[in-house]
């Protein structure tokens, strides 16, 4: 029994320690070292094989120069701010698009709901890369959208949407929409309709009944949906690099280029550590919201 229990806990525990936690230690260590023209391209400032003198050397040389560099070069803090801005705007847009869909799904006849659910989940199972790729053909200058608008006579010159932040907003809203719809739908579906009937009996208009009852009751779903879009959107790489062009600055792309093009591993690691610190706050808030919802359900 005891051996069985130990393996059961030990194997997944050890796996995650070695392949999840230890790598973070390594990122942190490399973010404190100096870049060098070597393979691997950094000089280790912490050498544990030298034992205690190695640690002492490390502490003596310890400087946060890569982090200082991040604050000095405008590229980095602009990229962080721009990621936050793009993620915030896209989350808001996804909420505006997703809420009416989730609301209508919850209002639909109950025999239709599983089918509607399936239709929302289906794109989520399709390749993320392909769903982003689909928009290149639509948004480019000779793309389908411009062709349609020109043919309709709404515009006379093609619109430049590709390679602008607008294309990134569209891409994020499109790919993450199921994450916004599903939690909101889950709260709306459970809602007690008699509350609405009572409000209407008491003379509420349907619109004000919505704002007084439905909207506040779906709050936990809205919060969950917003975090599920916001958190991955901040570190997004694929969407800005395929749709955003060179004009759109996002930190995931900066990290990628720092690593693959500039081969500056210490700075790439420092970028990653700062990104993590930024993400800790929304992640903790999200966790709190989930716990509160679970308590309310129990």
């Amino acid at each position: 029994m005891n051996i069985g229990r130990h393996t059961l806990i030990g194997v997944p525990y050890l796996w995650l320690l070695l392949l999840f936690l230890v790598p973070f230690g390594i990122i942190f260590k490399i973010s404190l070292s100096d870049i060098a023209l070597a393979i691997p391209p950094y000089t280790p400032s912490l050498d544990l094989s030298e034992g205690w003198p190695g640690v002492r050397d490390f502490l003596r040389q310890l400087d946060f120069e890569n982090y200082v560099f991040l604050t000095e070069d405008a590229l980095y803090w602009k990229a962080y701010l721009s990621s936050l801005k793009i993620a915030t705007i896209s989350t808001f847009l996804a909420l505006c698009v997703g809420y009416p869909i989730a609301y209508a799904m919850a209002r639909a006849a109950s025999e239709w709901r599983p089918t509607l659910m399936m239709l929302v989940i289906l794109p989520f199972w399709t390749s993320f890369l392909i769903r982003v790729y689909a928009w290149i053909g639509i948004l480019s200058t000779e793309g389908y959208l411009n062709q349609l608008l020109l043919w309709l006579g709404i515009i006379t010159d093609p619109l430049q949407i590709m390679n602008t932040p607008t294309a990134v907003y569209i891409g994020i809203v499109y790919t993450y929409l199921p994450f916004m719809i599903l939690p909101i739908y889950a709260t709306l579906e459970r809602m007690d309709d008699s509350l609405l009937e009572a409000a209407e009996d008491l003379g509420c208009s349907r619109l004000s009944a919505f704002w007084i009852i439905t909207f506040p009751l779906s709050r936990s779903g809205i919060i969950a949906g917003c975090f599920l879009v916001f958190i991955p959107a901040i570190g997004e790489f694929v969407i800005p690099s395929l749709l955003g062009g060179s004009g759109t600055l996002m930190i995931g792309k900066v990290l990628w280029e720092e690593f693959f093009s500039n081969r500056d591993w210490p700075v790439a690691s420092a970028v990653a550590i700062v990104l993590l610190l930024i993400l800790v706050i929304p992640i903790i808030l999200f966790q709190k919201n989930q716990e509160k919802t679970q308590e309310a359900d129990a």
Partner: protein
Amino acid sequence: MRRFSWFNATSLTLGFAFLYVPMIILVVYSFNESRLVTVWAGFSTRWYGELLRDQAFLDAAWVTVRVAFVSSTIATVLGTMAAYVLVRGGKFMGRTLFSGMIYAPLVMPEVITGLSLLLLFISIGLDRGIFTIILAHTTFSMCYVSVVVSSRLVSFDRSVEEAALDLGCTPFDAFRSVTLPLIAPAVIAGWLLAFTLSLDDLVIASFTAGPSATTLPIKIFSSVRMGVSPEINALSTILIGIVTVGVVTASLVSKRRIVQRERDEKMAGQTA
């Protein structure tokens, strides 16, 4: 009674149009004769032929399927173990850290996960290739499996397991003959999720693949960067087709099962 207004109908129509029109366009134009993707020049299956003759794509697809199969299978075993520990394990040392490590990868930006694993592989001197992609994919997808399986473990009645133990089953037998069949749908769903995540992953695979192995998303990404291409449209259509058949079948099966259960319950009610 819930009212379904014209407003609801419009938002459903527009919403699903937004979700599906881009994919439909992709599928339609994969049958376009012209290499200029945005100009329709007549029906043709020419790009499917070119795709199937492109050895680099076929090799990448084969690597991707192998990686996805192996990593999702290991991830399902580890993830189910982790879920069981979290839900039934009781207290043990480092439990908080354990559950933190299960949930953190779910919200971790892919660029960070990829970078950290790459730095790990380099610092322990592991050659990058298919093996390292499998390790990386297993690590993040086992967390998804564990979340799916633990939500099922939480919801079912524990007394059946206890009954098996009281009747003399060893804990392992009780798990095999009682718990496992009960959580099987969640385990299968977890495996499918892990498989899809692995098939789909570009960022983590790019970091951990190294020059010797190329997966399908890496191949797609490098050719998509040059712009729209008809071969990629054909490939997308094939992938969309597979997913659609899979999801529709799964939902029909689960619908049948629900209907069957309702009928059984009714029968049981009549005999009682």
